[in-house]
């Protein structure tokens, strides 16, 4: 498995790029060329196309809408006023799901990476279990949860019988269910980078903490947690970003309902169902901009640059 891919998304590249001798400049540029071309063709061009589409004007003079390239900034104003709840929901669900995934993954990753060090076999087995869900399609697994929590399932009837749910209350279609699905689906993306950081945690730092009068709790707060920041940052980025754009879990076909639809669901329906390309594009650009802004702030604030 490509664990390395999960580690230190935050800034692992920095370490590698440190000292470059003068002569290798041209070679490096040459080696970069295919990558740069790829980025230009498959990233920069579509991005411009997306932005251009988001600014298209609508012409309905012929009876049905025709979109022309223009500079219709009101598209943005419209989507924000119209889809404000979905935009908010996207980031709110992403936040809750990311925090839940972190809370669940950290102890798990700590156990695999630190406590299980003496038993490499157990370590390998547990890591395999973390990745095992990937062997089954993400859609199937999400659908399976819908079955498990379906209105007729014993879980729901059980919760209703103990009064936790009202007789007419169900789980599927609720924000809880969507956040549950998001958390479940993205836990491996949180666990793996946390594991790679914690696996390298030097136990001697913890001993030094204890030696310097810090209780286990204080040692965790002052030593373990700061030292695992690179893993926390890359883990939260790897979960938060895709969750904010996710449209499967919140969709009515899976765990959500119209009450839970997120930005991704709106984009999906505008692009694929009602063909309102400018609206969908404007929403996509907003999503991208917001993520970019949040991530930049987050990485700056967490100050992980120091550790890398």
């Amino acid at each position, binding site marked *: 498995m490509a664990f390395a891919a999960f580690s230190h998304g935050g800034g692992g590249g920095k370490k590698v790029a440190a000292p470059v001798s003068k002569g290798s400049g041209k070679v490096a540029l040459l080696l970069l060329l295919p990558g740069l071309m790829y980025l230009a063709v498959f990233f920069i061009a579509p991005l411009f196309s997306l932005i251009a589409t988001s600014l298209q004007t609508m012409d309905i003079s012929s009876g049905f809408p025709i979109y022309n390239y223009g500079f219709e900034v009101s598209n943005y104003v419209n989507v924000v006023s119209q889809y404000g709840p979905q935009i908010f929901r996207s980031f709110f669900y992403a936040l809750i799901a990311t925090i839940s995934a972190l809370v669940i993954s950290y102890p798990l990753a700590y156990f695999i990476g630190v406590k299980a060090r003496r038993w490499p076999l157990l370590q390998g087995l547990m890591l395999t279990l973390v990745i095992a869900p990937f062997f089954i399609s993400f859609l199937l697994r999400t659908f399976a949860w819908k079955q498990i929590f379906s209105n007729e399932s014993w879980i729901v009837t059980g919760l209703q019988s103990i009064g936790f749910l009202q007789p007419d209350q169900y789980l599927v279609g609720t924000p809880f269910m969507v956040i549950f699905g998001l958390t479940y689906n993205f836990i491996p993306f949180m666990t793996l980078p946390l594991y790679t950081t914690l696996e390298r945690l030097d136990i001697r730092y913890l001993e*030094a*903490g204890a030696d*310097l009068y810090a*209780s286990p709790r204080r040692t965790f707060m*002052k*030593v373990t947690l700061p030292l695992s920041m690179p893993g926390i940052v890359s883990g939260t980025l790897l979960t938060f970003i895709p969750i904010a754009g996710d449209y499967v879990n919140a969709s009515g076909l899976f765990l959500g309902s119209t009450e839970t639809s997120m930005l991704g669901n709106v984009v999906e329906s505008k692009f694929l169902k009602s063909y309102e390309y400018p609206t969908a594009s404007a929403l996509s650009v907003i999503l991208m901009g917001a993520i970019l802004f949040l991530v930049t702030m987050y990485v700056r604030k967490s100050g992980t640059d120091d*550790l890398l």
Partner: protein
Amino acid sequence: MATEFVARGADLELVGIRKEFPGFTAIEDLDLHIPAGEFFALLGPSGCGKTTTLRLVAGLDEPTKGKILIGGKDITATKAYQRPVNTVFQSYALFPHMSVLENVAFGLKQRKIEDPMSKAQASLDLVELGHLALRRPAQLSGGQQQRVALARALVNRPSLLLLDEPLGALDLKLRRQMQIELKAIQMEVGLTFLHVTHDQEEAMDMADTVAVMNKGRIEQMGSPEKLYDRPKTVFVSKFLGQSNLFVGKVEEENASSISINVAGNKITVPKDRAEKHKGTIAVGVRPEKAFFHEEKPKLGAGHNLIGPGEIIDIRFTGVSNQYLIEIPNVGNVTVFAQNIGKSPVTELGAKVWVSWKVEHAFGLSDLPTNVGTETITQSITVQ
């Protein structure tokens, strides 16, 4: 907090300590008392249990059996963070995510001592690193990191400071310099130091008392001078400096001395310098206390004389020449002769006799493992 900010050292007492790990016993029934304010060295080869002993005192491992007392108080059941003990780790273990100053202030902050930053700064000044306070540990050299580790431990004024081979990673020159500084600091602050090392010179140079440890036991304990002058076991005689050992049966005994027979040579040792007075025993002498003669000398009863033998190796080490002399049926004997401009013999193959004063001989309690007429002269100084 469990510990107060004391400025004086406390004594350490280990009572019947035993530590078992799965598959082996690291320490067997260890009893040890280190008086307050003393610089105590635990000396031994790797794997002898000295680092385990230190970890038990620090609270990083738990003894299988026995009690640990600091200042008369039983702390066996307390956790590492509750003990008035600080460690200078072999790897330094400086927190990489904190500045040097924050590292040093860490212990003070945990105990909520007032004004941790200025105390930390003062401690850094003591080790002459005040100007690097805001750097990260990774930006310092090995020697500087070592001093930060020392400052980080010292600033807490622990009752007991544990040093886990902290000088091991330094080059010789820096190590000597740090040894002098460490000793000066210990005298200045008056703390109890427990220093674990495999470097016999370091132990002898710095410590008031040295305990030589081997296979989980303390073989011998005492002042460096005493240990060197009068080792009691083969291990100590070889680990602490070098020794020429001769094995033979006790054949003569009088009021003050005993003599053994080594392949026809009579070797005498004073009774009060011998552990055993009967049977087959090992008698040793330090190479610098032995002399060689080109002609058979006429010596009084106060001397041992063996030979003749042949010089088979000469090593020039600067301050002295080291001669290896092969004596038929006895084995090889090492003699150190100082280079004071009149070294007696310098060519290989010369026929010589070796002598030393009876009062310089010592009798051991055990025998070298390769018993027989073969004697052990190679030193096992681990560097």
